[in-house]
């Protein structure tokens, strides 16, 4: 498929996903009512409150988190030379959640900072353990990542129980939840994430070469140590931001780059931006399902991404063999 056509179709898809999400919910809003609210923000106070204070912020949150997960997924798959990894499977999301839990339990000032530190430390830990004699062992990587992830999740539950924190809230946190929007945090997160993502896209051809072979990349002039540091830090920081905003949402980072690669090929210069939009669309749809399926109750969005993502993951795994 032509790249322009793909990007154009994805943006149309994003538009419809946003529209779908804006009108769905415990209070149905028709298209006319929505248009009214959008044209004259204070005409109908009830509807405009729902749109501007609840649904739109939540959609903006889903766009950023889904986009980040899509981009980080494409980065991790390239840097680990393994199309089966994402922030969740490598344990990086759980590392971020663990950092955030520490910040909550001990009332530290910046939850985001701790989430980022947790994510960066986990990614370095998993990478170091998966490398033997300068070679990255893909099986070790998957196993160590999954184990680190479950260990940290259990540790989070354990610490929460030990320090008498509300376990239901922790479960929501571990399953991913887009219901709480801190607008100031969201604003800063957008600002920093977009800078980091642009930086990641700028160096993406070097990551392309790196994703074939590290030694060959070095010989053809790529500063491989710089590339590794840049992308480990970026994916750690981005995952930390996403987890601080919404908890651990699995499978988006795995499935989206995979589907997008099917259309674009592995070139990250196009795959990264397209995975951002794709992740955003996917998460908006999953979140809308999560908050409307059992009205008036809501379920964590991670349940929906898991229900959709895990089977897709297994399909991909089987098809590869």
């Amino acid at each position: 498929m032509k790249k322009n056509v793909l990007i154009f179709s994805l943006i149309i898809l994003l538009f419809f996903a946003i529209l779908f999400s804006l009108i769905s919910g415990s209070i149905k809003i028709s298209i006319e009512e929505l248009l009214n609210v959008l044209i004259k923000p204070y005409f109908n106070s009830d509807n405009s409150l729902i749109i501007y204070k609840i649904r739109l912020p939540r959609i903006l949150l889903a766009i950023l988190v889904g986009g980040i997960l899509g981009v980080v997924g494409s980065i991790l798959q390239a840097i680990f030379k393994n199309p089966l990894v994402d922030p969740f499977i490598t344990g990086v999301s759980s590392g971020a959640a663990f950092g955030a839990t520490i910040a909550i339990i001990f009332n530290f000032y910046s939850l985001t900072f701790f989430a980022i530190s947790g994510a960066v430390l986990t990614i370095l830990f998993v990478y170091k353990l998966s490398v033997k004699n300068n070679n990255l062992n893909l099986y070790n990587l998957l196993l160590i990542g999954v184990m680190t992830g479950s260990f940290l999740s259990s540790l989070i539950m354990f610490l929460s129980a030990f320090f008498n924190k509300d376990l239901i809230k922790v479960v929501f946190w571990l399953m991913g939840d887009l219901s709480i929007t801190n607008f100031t945090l969201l604003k800063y997160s957008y600002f920093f994430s977009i800078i980091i993502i642009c930086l990641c896209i700028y160096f993406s051809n070097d990551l392309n070469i790196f994703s074939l072979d590290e030694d060959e990349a070095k010989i053809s002039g790529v500063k491989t140590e710089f590339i590794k540091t840049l992308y480990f830090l970026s994916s750690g920081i981005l995952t930390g931001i996403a987890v601080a905003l919404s908890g651990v949402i699995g499978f988006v980072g795995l499935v989206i780059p995979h589907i997008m690669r099917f259309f674009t090929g592995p070139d990250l210069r196009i795959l990264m931006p397209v995975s951002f939009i794709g992740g955003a669309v996917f998460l908006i749809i999953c979140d809308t399902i999560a908050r409307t399926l059992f009205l008036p109750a809501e379920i964590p969005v991670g349940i929906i991404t898991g229900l959709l993502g895990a089977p897709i993951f297994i399909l991909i795994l089987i098809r590869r063999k």
Partner: protein
Amino acid sequence: MSIIKSENISFRYAESYNNCLNNISIDINEKEMVALAGPNGAGKTTLFKIICGLIKGYAGNLYVYGKDINLYSNIELAKIISYIPQTDNYIFDFTVYEIIAMGRRPYLNSFGILSKKDKDIILNICDFLGINKIIKRKYSNLSGGEKRLVLIARALAQEASVLLMDEPTTYLDLYYKILFMDKLLELNKKGKTILLISHDINLISEYMNKVILIKEGKVIYDGKIKQVIDEKKLKEVFNFDNFIIEKNKVSGNPNLFFIPTNKTGG
């Protein structure tokens, strides 16, 4: 003029007790075609990695165009030395064109947008190697011979004066083997210096002008084909008796013929 010159290079892997390379001193001149041969585990690939700048922490000195290799940046070195790996284990399915374009990296920024000039260079190389019909195909769908040509195209796109190759003909059938070596000969005539590792004594004898025999990390013989490809010397280096060396009736170069154990009379 000397392009690559090593003085007493010794190297030991961190996890090993023995030196992998012992006082290796070699001198590769401009426009030479040099083969590196020797038993498995002799240290040939390690020496290659040192010459490519992949392994640091060796003892001794290595000069590229008379300047210490450590004084070159990645990109400067990439413009002088390019490398064709022995095997590839590429996970992601790039197209042939995308892979060849990666060779232009030393001349581009990190985003890698190709200029008209870069594209012309790539197309010329594809013409030269006869692979312009496959540039839109996925690399993974190619045959072993085609893959090899694509990797050499990527190395040529780097426009380096030295081509390093680790057993480039191992998986090639007879047709591709000769095609590949003929292309190397043509490249050599155009001014490229070629250094390759090979186990194929006859190929070395017919195509290269110098051979370096390495055993247990030491250079045992280093010289012109007719001096080094010699029955006694090869038997000493490979520690193996079941062959004879005879003149190729057409080319006049020394060729190796195997003799199965049950026919050696001993």
